[in-house]
């Protein structure tokens, strides 16, 4: 092990971490606005990856061009799931019920994906997937750089939407306080539906990058969702900035541990960091301390 290897792993971590940050932002947005923990986020990522796979293998559509189809598709899937299932959840145990409902949805999707695509691992292919470029003496895979660029562009778009549009003000108002938002005339129901759609839509992009950098099948979703949940809890649930920073930080630390102590410890380190941080700061790094959570 030497300094260069450590620096390299940090660069890799930041590049791939940004993609996780994007997926986690969707998850934390959904939680913040709707008080729903969307456990199906993992399988939506895999669904996005399989859609890109189907488009590139059967129709020969480039992975990035295919996003023009897969992102709107997952947006619609999100809207339908919210309207048909999640809008029915009411009552005091809303958060727990949402976990169970979205878990059930993810089981059904997992079964369907297994039937359609079989359980064999697949990978996405394109000319930029297996090639690297030399930057300042480091060989960086093109796909990492493109994934980073994509994450930055989409997060930028999300930022503009949240902070520069009228709809964004409604979303932020709903994040802060649903009742007050409804009182000043915001249609919280509609905001919730669109937010769920948006939160799911980003998984199409995340899934494409994930599929291009990892071999996957439907059960890869368990690994993904456990990571994404750790990231949003660590960042402070409902905090978008927190999800961004925690996403990049966690993946970077994971990569570092893999280089310094070996890959078997990196997963363990990932979860142990959460346990340690929460012992010191129960609300997460950027979360507001919770008083009276009914």
């Amino acid at each position: 092990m030497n300094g260069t290897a450590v620096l390299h792993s940090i660069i890799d971590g930041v590049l791939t971490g940004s993609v996780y940050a994007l997926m986690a932002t969707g998850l934390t947005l959904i939680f913040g606005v709707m008080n729903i923990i969307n456990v199906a986020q993992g399988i939506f990522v895999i669904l996005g990856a399989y859609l890109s796979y189907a488009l590139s293998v059967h129709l020969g559509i480039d992975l990035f061009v295919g996003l023009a189809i897969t992102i709107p598709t997952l947006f619609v899937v999100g809207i339908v799931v919210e309207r048909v299932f999640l809008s029915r959840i009411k009552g005091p145990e809303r958060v727990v019920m949402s976990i169970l409902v979205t878990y059930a949805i993810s089981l059904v999707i997992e079964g369907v994906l297994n039937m359609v695509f079989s359980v064999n691992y697949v990978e996405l292919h394109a000319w930029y997937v297996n090639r690297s470029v030399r930057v300042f003496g480091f060989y960086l895979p093109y796909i990492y750089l493109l994934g980073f660029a994509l994450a930055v562009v989409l997060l930028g778009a999300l930022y503009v939407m949240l902070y520069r549009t009228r709809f964004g003000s409604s979303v932020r108002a709903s994040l802060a306080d649903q009742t007050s938002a409804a009182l000043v005339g915001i249609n919280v129901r509609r905001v919730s539906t669109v937010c769920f759609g948006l939160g799911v839509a980003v998984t199409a992009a995340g899934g494409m990058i994930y599929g291009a950098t990892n071999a996957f099948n439907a059960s890869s979703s368990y690994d993904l969702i456990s990571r994404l949940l750790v990231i949003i809890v660590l960042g402070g649930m409902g905090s978008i900035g927190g999800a961004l920073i925690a996403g990049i930080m966690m993946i970077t630390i994971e990569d570092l541990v893999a280089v310094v102590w070996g890959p078997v410890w990196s997963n363990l380190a990932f979860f142990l960091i959460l346990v340690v941080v929460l012992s010191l700061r129960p609300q997460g790094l950027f979360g507001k301390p919770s008083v009276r959570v009914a």
Partner: protein
Amino acid sequence: MLRARNVWWILALGALVLFPLIETNPTYTTIGVFALIFMGCATSWNMFSGYSGYINLGSAVSYGVGAYTLTLLADHLHVPGNGDLFWLIPVGGLAAMIVAVPVGLVALRVRRHTFVVITIAIFFVFQLSAINFSFTGGTSGLQLPLIPWLETNYNKPFYYAALAITVFAALLSAAVRRSRFGLQLLAIRDDEDRAAGLGVKVFAVKLAGFTMSAFAVGMGGALYAVFLGQIYPQFVFDPIFDISIALMAIFGGLGTLTGPLLGALVLESMQQYLTIRFSNGSLYLIIFGSLFLVIVLFMPQGIVVYLSDWRSRRAAQRVEGARVVVGEAS
């Protein structure tokens, strides 16, 4: 006095005791063993999560710790492959309780929905440790000494051991429900801040409940290890177990005594049957998932509450009808 409610409990227990004597087909008695293990675990899980409202989605930690403790002890103490293995089952439960203390100290510092996510994260710490450490045998798992019992009667001892665990869990859960401690747990579910304001030592109560509920789940895991004769990290530390237990309790009725028993009996038997019936795992996932959705969306209170609501509505209608008759007469 023997009340109607107690008669039903005795009849149910009698049916469970007689089942393996009447039904000797090993396929069905195996389903019975699994159903009872899950009934015990779901009841014990409900004793904390159902009463306090803190949904633990990492109960497989207790299950896996119980299974590994028994297997490792049997190996180190050179326990022969016979009934002696059963005496180690409570030790597995104790180990699960000991492990639950530090886990609870970390996880119970936060409020409900973060608690759910932390229990999932801690679960993965344990699963990954079982895979990575060498004393657990890694992914190739561990073997238990073979038990040379006749195949025709093989399931019976396991069945009655599982029944004993279930009865123990149900009695403990009922005792807690009627105690001051149980009331404190329920008060935490209804309003934690108010409970604290009224003098309930909320953290201590939560930690005690969390630790107690680990015992029977750990015993369930230990029994599972003896029953199968071998364990693998991904089967005893199984995310599906975490969710199944919660689903069973919610399906039956969260926080009720009968609910988890009934829920686990119905769902686990059905799950085992579907696995045998549809060897195709994907179809099974779709059926199980859809059923799960229907339950959570249409009967969110669970079948026990659903049925008793239905009965009280019927009774209310009868009273209403009687009033009309009386009104006409006068």
